[in-house]
C-alpha cells in the first residue's frame, strides 16, 4: 500500500514540476514495476529488502542542451556517472528499510561513505537533469515574481547573482570536485554555497544549517571536460543558457512552503 501511495505522489509531483505527464508516467511506471518486482523478490528471498532507487531518464535527448553542454557529456554523465551512483546507493542500502531519497540526505554524513557519496550523487544528479532544458525553451522561461524579488533582495539583480555564482563555482572556490548551489536558508533568504564532492546543503553538518537548493551546478570535471577541458569559467557562464527558470521557480515555491528538499525522480 505504501509503495502505491508513494507511486501516486510521485506521479503527481513531477507533473507539477514542469515536465510532461508522459515522462512522469513512464518513469513512475517503471519504478512501480521495479518496486513490485523487488517487493516480490524480497518476500521470497530476503524480507526487509529496501525498495530500489532507479536511474531517471533525462527529460530531453542527449543533444538537447547543445551547444552549451555537449551530447557525449550528457550521455556519459547520465548513463555512466549517475548510473553508478544509483547502483552504489542501492548496494549501500541493501537489507535496510526503504527511505525517500530526499530524506536520505539529512543524515548522510553519519550514514557512511556509501550513502554520503552515492546517495548524495544520486540526488544531486536527479536534481540537476530536471532544472535544465533546451536553450530555445530556456529562453522562454524566467524567474517568478516571488523568486525575482528574493534574488534582487539577496544579490541586487540576476546578473549580480550570476557573477557571485561564477566566483563561487570557480576552481579557486571549489577546490577539486563539487557543486555550486543557490539555496534558501533558514531565514528564507537566498544564498550561494559550494559543497565538495557529492555533498549537498540538505545534509546535516555540511553547512552551518540545512539549506534547501533551488538551483545547482555540477562542477566536477566530468560535467564539462570533454567540451571545455580546463575552462570551467566558460562552462559556468554558458550553463545559464540551459537553466529552466520555471522549474527553478517551482523549486523555490516548494522549498519556501515545505522547508524540505525538492523531490526528484528516481
Amino acid at each position, binding site marked *: 500500500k505504501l509503495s502505491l501511495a508513494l507511486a501516486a505522489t510521485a506521479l503527481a509531483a513531477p507533473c507539477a514540476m514542469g515536465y510532461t505527464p508522459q515522462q512522469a508516467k513512464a518513469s513512475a511506471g517503471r519504478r512501480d514495476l521495479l518496486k513490485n518486482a523487488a517487493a516480490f523478490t524480497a518476500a521470497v528471498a530476503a524480507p526487509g529488502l529496501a525498495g530500489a532507487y532507479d536511474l531517471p531518464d533525462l527529460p530531453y535527448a542527449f543533444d538537447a542542451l547543445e551547444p552549451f553542454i555537449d551530447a557525449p557529456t550528457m550521455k*556519459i554523465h547520465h548513463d*555512466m*556517472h549517475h548510473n*553508478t551512483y544509483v547502483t552504489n546507493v542501492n548496494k549501500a542500502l541493501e537489507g535496510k528499510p526503504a527511505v525517500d531519497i530526499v530524506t536520505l540526505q539529512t543524515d548522510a554524513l553519519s550514514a557512511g*561513505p556509501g550513502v554520503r*557519496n552515492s546517495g548524495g550523487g544520486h540526488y544531486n544528479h536527479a536534481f540537476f537533469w530536471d532544472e535544465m532544458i533546451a536553450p530555445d525553451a530556456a529562453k522562454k522561461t524566467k524567474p517568478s515574481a516571488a523568486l525575482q524579488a528574493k534574488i534582487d533582495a539577496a544579490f541586487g539583480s540576476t546578473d549580480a547573482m550570476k557573477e557571485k555564482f561564477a566566483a563561487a563555482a570557480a*576552481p*579557486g572556490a571549489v*577546490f*577539486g*570536485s*563539487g557543486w555550486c548551489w543557490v539555496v534558501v536558508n533558514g531565514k528564507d533568504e537566498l544564498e550561494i554555497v559550494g559543497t*565538495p*564532492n*557529492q555533498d549537498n546543503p540538505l545534509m546535516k553538518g555540511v553547512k552551518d544549517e540545512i539549506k534547501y537548493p533551488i538551483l545547482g551546478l555540477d562542477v*566536477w*570535471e*566530468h560535467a564539462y*571536460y*570533454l567540451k571545455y*577541458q*580546463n575552462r570551467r569559467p566558460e562552462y559556468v557562464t554558458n550553463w545559464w543558457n540551459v537553466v529552466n527558470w520555471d522549474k527553478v521557480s517551482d523549486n523555490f515555491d516548494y522549498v519556501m512552503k515545505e522547508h524540505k528538499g525538492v523531490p526528484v525522480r528516481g
Partner: protein
Amino acid sequence: MYKFVARPLSRAASRRMLSTSSPASLPPLAHAYDAYEPAISATIMEIHHSKHHATYVNNLNACLEKAEEASKTGDANTLIALAPAIKFNGGGHINHTLFWENLCPAAESNPPTGDLAAAIDAAFGSFDAMKAEMSAKSVAVQGSGWGWLGYNKSSGSLEIATCANQDPLEATTGLVPIVGIDVWEHAYYLQYKNVRPDYVKEIWSVIDWGCAEKRFAAAK
C-alpha cells in the same frame, strides 16, 4: 609535433623551483607529449601540463606576490586568507612537478631494483601486491586527489597514502613522495572517460622506477 629538448631537472633546480623565495615556474617535460602513449594520450599530456599545471604555477605566483606584500606589513589577516589558495596552487605545483618526473616512456619503464625493490617486498610482500594496493586506493579516492607510494621516515618503511584535491603528500602526512598518480578526472577523462580503474591499470606501464629509486635513496 611536440618536441621538447629538455633534461630532467636536477634536484637542486627542483628545490629552487619549489622554494617559495623565488617565483614558481612551469618545468618542461623530459619527453614529448606523445611519449607516454598509449597509456596517456598526447592530448591529455599537453592540456594537463600546459594548461592545468601552468594555471597552478600562475596562480601560485599571484598568491606569493600578495603574501610577500602582506608579510612586509605583518598583515596576518591577509596571509591567513591566502593560505587555502597557496595550499591549493602550491600543492598543485608540487604534485604535478613530482608527477612528470615519475613518468617515462613505456620502453624506459623497468621494475624497481636494489634497495627500493627490497623495501617494496618488505612492506607489501611483492611488487604486484604493492601495485594492487596502490591501484585500489587510488581508484577509491572520492572526487579529486592523488595516490602515493610514500616513505615513512619514522618507521623506515614504505606506505600507500591518498590525498584529497591538491593537498601535498609530505606536508599533509609527513610521508616522502616516491611515486604519485594523479586521479583528478582531468588526468584521464578525455581518454578513459569515467573508467578510472582502466587509467590506473595502464599508468603502471609508464612509471619511471629509476626516478623512484633516486627519491627513495635521498629519503632514507
